[in-house]
């Protein structure tokens, strides 16, 4: 039926059979994701630079760890050299796989263009999440796959063989992705209240860089700092999926981390709802 109408109206759309099979309410979000994917293709240099970036960073991080471990008398308890190399490679790949555009909402709020989204019968959160997922799909195909392929060959990293690791990834990655999306979303909504939000984003980037586990795994932080790290959402974004996938954490500890991820996702979800409502009340006069 979809196809017939599409033919008749000469709106071919994208012939993804999956979309047609979805219920109408969900279809729109799937379409958003696909459009957003397609949009990325317009930027050819972004693609090449992106792959180059990913490989460069993995190369640098693994080199750094090797250099540091060469200075050590004996490896620390948390990771041997092989372990930390695998962690560095997969942490970077997880990071690439979660690439999100966190400034588009900020831009819309500042320019007032958000009004156009608000006169549509859909959830702004859902729309942004779909767009974000579309970009992520693009990064999967164009950056994650080549970077992963080269890494397996060149950087002494191997994919885990046990199905448990893959199962844990399948749960922890989406939760981590969602947490990251909602943290970005909450920081973006600050633009409703503040003219200039650069410092907030700087703080977010800083905290993410340090505490997400993408550069230094959480294990290396001093004991007394760990309660702070565990009470921030960042380690559940990168560290958790990477540690579970590489098998660095398993069993009951793994389960505990996934439950914490779930709790964070729920809490942030509620925060997003509350803040969006408050933001709607805040909307400023534009053009009288």
């Amino acid at each position, binding site marked *: 039926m979809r196809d017939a109408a599409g033919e008749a109206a000469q709106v071919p759309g994208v012939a993804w059979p999956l979309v047609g099979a979805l219920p109408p309410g969900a279809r729109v979000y799937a379409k958003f994701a696909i459009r957003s994917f397609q949009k990325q293709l317009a930027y050819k240099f972004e693609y090449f630079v992106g792959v180059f970036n990913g490989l460069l960073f993995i190369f640098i991080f693994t080199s750094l760890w090797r250099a540091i471990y060469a200075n050590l008398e004996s490896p620390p308890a948390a990771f041997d050299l092989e372990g930390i190399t695998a962690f560095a490679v997969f942490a970077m790949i997880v990071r690439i796989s979660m690439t999100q555009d966190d400034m588009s909402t900020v831009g819309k709020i500042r320019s007032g263009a958000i009004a156009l989204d608000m006169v*549509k019968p859909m959830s702004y959160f859902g729309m942004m999440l779909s767009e974000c997922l579309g970009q992520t799909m693009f990064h999967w195909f164009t950056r994650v796959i080549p970077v992963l392929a080269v890494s397996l060959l060149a950087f002494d990293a191997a994919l885990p063989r046990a199905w448990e690791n893959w199962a844990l990834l399948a749960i922890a990655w989406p939760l981590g992705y969602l947490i990251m999306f909602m943290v970005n979303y909450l920081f973006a909504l600050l633009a409703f209240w503040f003219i200039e939000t650069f410092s907030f984003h700087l703080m977010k980037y800083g905290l993410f860089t340090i505490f997400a586990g993408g550069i230094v795994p959480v294990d290396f932080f001093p004991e007394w700092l760990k309660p702070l790290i565990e009470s921030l959402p960042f380690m559940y974004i990168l560290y958790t999926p990477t540690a579970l996938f590489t098998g660095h954490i398993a069993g009951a500890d793994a389960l505990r981390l996934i439950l914490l991820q779930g709790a964070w996702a729920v809490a942030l979800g509620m925060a997003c709802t509350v803040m969006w409502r408050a933001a709607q009340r805040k909307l400023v*006069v534009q*053009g009288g």
Partner: protein
Amino acid sequence: MNEHEPLIRAEGLTRTFRVEESLEGLLGSFKNLFSTRHRLITAVNNVSFDIHRGEFVGYVGENGAGKSTTIKMLTGILTPTAGRVEVADIVPYEDRAANAFNIGVVFGQRTQLWWDLPVRDSFDLLRSIYRVPDDLFTRNYRELAEALHLEPLLTLPVRKLSLGQRMRCDLAAALLHGPKILFLDEPTIGLDLIAKDKMRAMLRRINQTRGVTIILTTHDMDDIEALCGRIMIIDKGSIAYDGSTERLKREHVRHKALEVEFHDYNPEVVAIPALKLLRREGNKQWLRYDPKAGTMHEVISALFRDYCVKDLSIHEPKVEDIVKAIYEQGAAPKAGAAPVHA
């Protein structure tokens, strides 16, 4: 909903904003780091009106008079501080999503289409957003593509369209789901003469053939004169006039202006009681005609009889001049403020 009940009903609509006061100067800037003083601004003040099905209403006012605040309340983006509004039996700010199905919105200054996507892909997205049934979509799509001459544009991404083409696509995008009401915010801004004419013809047609109720805000009074049966003027947050455009012309400025070019000379005084000198230049005079002091027949006859007139133009009062006068006087012509149904 009864056919004869108003489609939009606003009662005592009021919206105030809290604005941060800031001190100026270098010292003031330092002080601002620690102060939080506020001031209240009433953007829309106790505004009431009814709009009926099929009307084409021009909503005009100076910048900052409260136009877009009103529109934001009608579209559900903004909650009023006081008063109430119903749009097709829905309170927009209480159920923004339900209201969204009933309305279409076009902002002249920005597009609702996706910048990088071909136009038809944007349309396809909107079909899903508004969950338009396939048969309805096909029909609307065909009609709009034909009426707005969209065929050659459909495969182009929006960023490659000219402003006029983009506005046509935006208009189609706002109508694809068959809304009852269309809000247009300066739909002709920045358009060249040809594109503006086309846009007006299309809006007229949409109002007449599809029966869509249209609320248009613009600074271009030619838009209003060409399109709107009814005009609502907002001034400093209050309605200064609400009634038919014809009545506005009839009641508020009765004075036509005569532009007379004389042969060779230019008389000191034109001795016709109904005419009053406005301006003299070269062998031309601009005269104001007062219909109470004589019929047009009498005046013209006297003019041609008593003077050597080479050429003549008679300028009708323009809506622009009337609206300008209302802006300048404030909400003076309150007598005409009762709503008029089209």
